């Protein structure tokens, strides 16, 4: 188990990076607490896997240091870092039995057979693989194979961190949920630091205590699932997390008052907007928008029933604003007005939240 620090990390795949676009990872400083369950969330190609491979030692970063428990491991090979990794596609040694697969990392390190046996059986028990121990690994289903990959990581006692690179991609939907709760359960039992890479917000939010959201090689926000939901630091986080995503509407701010078109909207942080700022937008989640007697006059364009509530699409001067309405809520057919919850309505400048007095 270890605390992991990434100090001033940058990485480019090509030699001699010049332009900003050459960097696959742009300057990262992240700290991962010992025993935490983290998710790395972001769209495909945002640098998640690169970051993961840097931590595991499969890639050496162009700049910066990787520090485990105060010890600089940037130049160490993967097997000297005592990490485990579960890949997107299950990796099993086809010709070996499940038992031999689980024993492989231990035998490679010269662990004595009776310890191997004890560890392997304990691990098989934890992963519900006991009944298949003597079977050939190649005959197992995808989720069984993925459990073996996980088991090969956990079977070692000295593992600092376990990393998952979109491990549920090839798993059947009804088994995904099972495997995910298995992971959560395992985390509680072994208390190893776990880093889980995914582009699926449900996976990230259910697995992790803390989610690191990435975009274009940058960390946009690190926070608990609730932080990400209630206080997105960037309009991207607002969009990417939540279904439907946050409403982002261009606005103007004069004298501490935000306006959409010519209508004043009260927000949490309009007072903090510097004068002369450009690229201003109001961000508010559909959960915090409701119909009101008075407010932003809109026309309802579409209502989608998704079960427990309805998604209502409205339009104000050509700008689309979504809101969620409970089943009982009447939806006005004309003269509709919207109200935003002030403490959840924020101004973003060029995508980033404008820091308010309330603090970030």
């Amino acid at each position, binding site marked *: 188990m270890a605390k992991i620090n990434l100090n001033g990390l940058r990485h480019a795949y090509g030699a001699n990076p010049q332009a900003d676009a050459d960097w696959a990872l742009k300057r990262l400083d992240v700290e991962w607490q010992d025993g935490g369950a983290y998710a790395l969330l972001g769209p495909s190609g945002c640098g998640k896997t690169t970051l993961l*491979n840097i931590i*595991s030692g*499969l890639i050496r970063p162009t700049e910066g240091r990787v520090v485990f428990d105060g010890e600089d491991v940037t130049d160490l*090979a*993967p*097997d000297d870092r005592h*990490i*485990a*990794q579960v*890949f*997107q*596609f299950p*990796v099993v*040694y*086809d*010709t*070996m039995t499940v038992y031999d697969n689980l024993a*492989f*990392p231990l035998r*490679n*390190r010269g662990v004595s057979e009776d310890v191997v046996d004890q560890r392997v059986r304990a691990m098989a028990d934890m992963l519900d693989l006991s009944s298949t121990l003597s079977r*050939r690994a190649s005959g197992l289903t995808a989720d069984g194979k993925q459990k073996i*990959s996980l088991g*090969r*990581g956990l079977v070692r006692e000295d593992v600092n961190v376990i990393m998952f690179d979109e491990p549920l991609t090839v798993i059947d939907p009804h088994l995904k949920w099972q495997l995910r709760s298995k992971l959560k359960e395992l985390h509680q039992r072994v208390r190893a630091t776990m880093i889980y890479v995914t582009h699926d917000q449900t996976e990230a939010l259910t697995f992790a205590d803390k989610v690191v959201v990435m975009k274009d090689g940058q960390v946009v926000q690190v926070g608990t699932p609730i932080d990400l939901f209630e206080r997105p630091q960037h309009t991207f986080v607002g969009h990417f997390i939540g279904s439907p995503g946050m409403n982002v509407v261009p606005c103007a701010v004069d004298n501490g008052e935000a306006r959409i078109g010519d209508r004043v909207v009260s927000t949490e942080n309009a007072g903090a907007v510097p004068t002369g700022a450009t690229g201003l937008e109001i961000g508010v989640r559909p959960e915090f928008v409701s119909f009101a007697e008075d407010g932003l006059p809109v026309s309802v364009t579409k209502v989608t029933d998704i079960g427990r509530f309805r998604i209502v699409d409205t339009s104000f001067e050509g700008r689309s604003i979504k809101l969620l309405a409970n089943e009982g809520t009447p939806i006005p057919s004309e003269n509709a007005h919207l109200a935003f919850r002030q403490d959840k309505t924020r101004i973003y400048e060029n995508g980033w939240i404008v820091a308010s007095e309330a603090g970030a």
Partner: protein
Amino acid sequence: MNKTVNQKAWFFVLPVVALVAFNAIIPLMTVVNYSVQETFGDNVFFWSGVMWFEQVLTSSRFHEALGRQLFFTFTILIIEVPLGVLIALTMPRKGPWVPVCLVLMALPLLIPWNVVGAMWNIFALPDIGLMGRFLNEIGFDYNFTRQPEDAWFTLILMDVWHWTSLVVLLAYAGLVSIPDAYYQAAKIDGARPWAIFRYIQLPKMKRVLTIAILLRFMDSFNVYTELSVLTGGGPGNSTTLLSIDLVKIALGQFDLGPAAAMSLIYFLIILLLSWVFYSLMMRNEEQ
């Protein structure tokens, strides 16, 4: 339910039937026809039953040719398969050298077979050939046209030079199809190079290697062109493999009956051995 019956479909199968008939069935049946008849010339044939088959199967000439053939096939397999795998392992998986290596590897396969035979014949001539002369200069008494061991040495060397590339290319194809994640997982699991080979690369190459061994097995049983140009089966009969012997009987002595019977036996041996080998490999796969 009523099925639509349209007999016109048979019409579309006709071209294939004609093609297969002309290139496989008719020639094969001609051979079968010859193998059960005796002729004294003038295109007059008599039924002779299995006489030719008995004659071929009991002749020491056939036994010797078959023995040499098996020796040749197993020797080249034992050399070419491990060597091919070894070369494939040393080839780069990515980068600008990949096409260069592939083209270099494919070169021997692109040379016409009789040219291969002629090249090696001249290359190995003891008085003027580069290799023959060199071997004699450094003290070996090397003469492949007179000494059977030298003829065998040259023959096997030629085959290895000519055909190892095929094994290399197939093994390489198997190797590059292994996803990077396997190597990464092995690194994390602390596997040494031998373990990586034994538990990742070899199992993943198994299918292509099965094909490579089958191809090399069948081709080496059928080897004719290079061999006939290089040694012509000599000196004496020392390198007379089945194909050379068959041509001698069929075209040299014009014994159509025995030659036909031998062809069929020859064909059945290849079929049988290939089938046994293939089912052994595949049975292993299913376990």
